[in-house]
């Protein structure tokens, strides 16, 4: 599925709509180059799940992972693997534990063999002033988007 995202608000809106569909055990892989809107989408997604529209959701580039607890008790793990060159060491970042919660991964090409087969692939790219989102995954993600 391909979606045109004309502006930042549209990127955030997609994040919120995906959050409404997300369940424990889900993994979302956010692909795309620098500045494509991966963190913007992840931020809107996390804020929606936490019912906290103004929550500070910093970029996890330097810490590699940030985790959040939703009011429902579900853990949300926000990974940014930009500084990694492969999956070695992901277990030190709580990767196995994270699979019980909801996982967002930026720069997921570093996951290699650890890429979960059931993950939703979401590729963002520059498209003029806006963005293009390409989604690949189970039908339940795409229905009604």
């Amino acid at each position, binding site marked *: 599925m391909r979606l045109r995202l004309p502006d930042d608000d549209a990127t955030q809106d997609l994040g919120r709509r995906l959050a409404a569909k997300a369940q424990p055990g889900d993994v979302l892989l956010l692909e795309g180059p620098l500045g494509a809107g991966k963190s913007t989408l992840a931020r809107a997604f996390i804020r929606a799940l936490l019912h906290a529209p103004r929550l500070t959701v910093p970029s996890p580039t330097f*810490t590699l992972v940030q*985790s959040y607890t939703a009011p429902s008790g579900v853990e949300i793990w926000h990974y940014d693997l930009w500084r990694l060159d492969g999956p070695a060491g992901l277990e*030190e*970042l709580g990767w196995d534990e994270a699979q019980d919660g909801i996982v967002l991964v930026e720069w997921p090409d570093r996951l290699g063999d650890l890429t979960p087969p059931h993950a939703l692939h979401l590729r963002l790219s520059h498209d003029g002033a806006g963005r293009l989102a390409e989604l690949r995954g189970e039908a339940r993600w795409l229905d009604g988007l």
Partner: protein
Amino acid sequence: MERKGEPHPPGGPVLGIESSCDETAAAILAPDGRILAERVLSQIADHAAFGGVVPEIAARAHLAALDAMVKDALGEAGLGFADLAAIAGTAGPGLIGGLLVGTGYAKGAAIAAGKPYLALNHLEAHALTARLPGLAPVQPGFPYLLLLLSGGHSQCVAVEGVGRYRLLGSTLDDAVGEAFDKSAKLLGLPYPGGPALEALAREGDAAAVALPRPLLHREGCDFSFSGLKTAVVQLVAAEPPGPLARARAADIAASFQAAVTDILGDRLVHALALCPDASAVIIAGGVAANSAIRARLAEVAAKASKPLIAPPLRLCTDNAVMVAWAAQERLRAGQVSGLDAPCKPRWPLDQLTP
């Protein structure tokens, strides 16, 4: 911090351990702030070989380095564990693996030596560094303003006392050092990107390229750098394929640095308005080493008749002297931590208490 109100522990040297991100560090400080020994091992040099990429998660490297580093520091100070008043470790915020290694070591040493343990907040340690005796001509009194500008943090904090921090603003998206590193990478510069970008900017014309200044003049003192990074992406993408011409890269670097300088100067104006009683402005973090940024912040502080204190780079980037000093400040207040104090990868300053 727990066990408040316990008897004041006897004064003595404190061992501090820092391992929350890329640096492994240990330091021993006397109660009066004299540095008896300090050691720091940065993995940045290792990372540079990989273009800034972490070839191995930091925790393993911390684990490999820490014990020898602590013993070396104790040796230089002429002390053993038994001579210490307490042992402190950074418990957050940061990478969980590194935090577990550092605090695990600190707790283990504290148990073995029968000494109190302190679980310290990394940001608090940065915030209190300015009070280290001898660092500023006059030790700044509370409240003072801290601008923490690093790869992992961009925060503006009113430091009102030990354990009393009012977060005035923070980044809504990317940290300022991250914006430097990512823009530098887009310009084809080596890691770490900040110093390389600053050097290239000297050759460029900041007026040659227009870049946005997110949140400029906006109320409060939050930061946003994501839009600036995206603008650099778009500029570079519009260039002909192949390596960027050096002159063009220099213009973009100069314009980027000018945009960040304008943003930070503006945010400091707003921060001073939110904390008019500040006795001084402290800048910390690797970005504080950028001379254009430092000059602008000094100018803004001078206009408000506030001294600007910029600790030397080794004390305002990640280090263990600040951890040991924050531990001395907490000990003076009669505070230590329980051995069950957890590591907290997310631990905002305003969750701390005096």
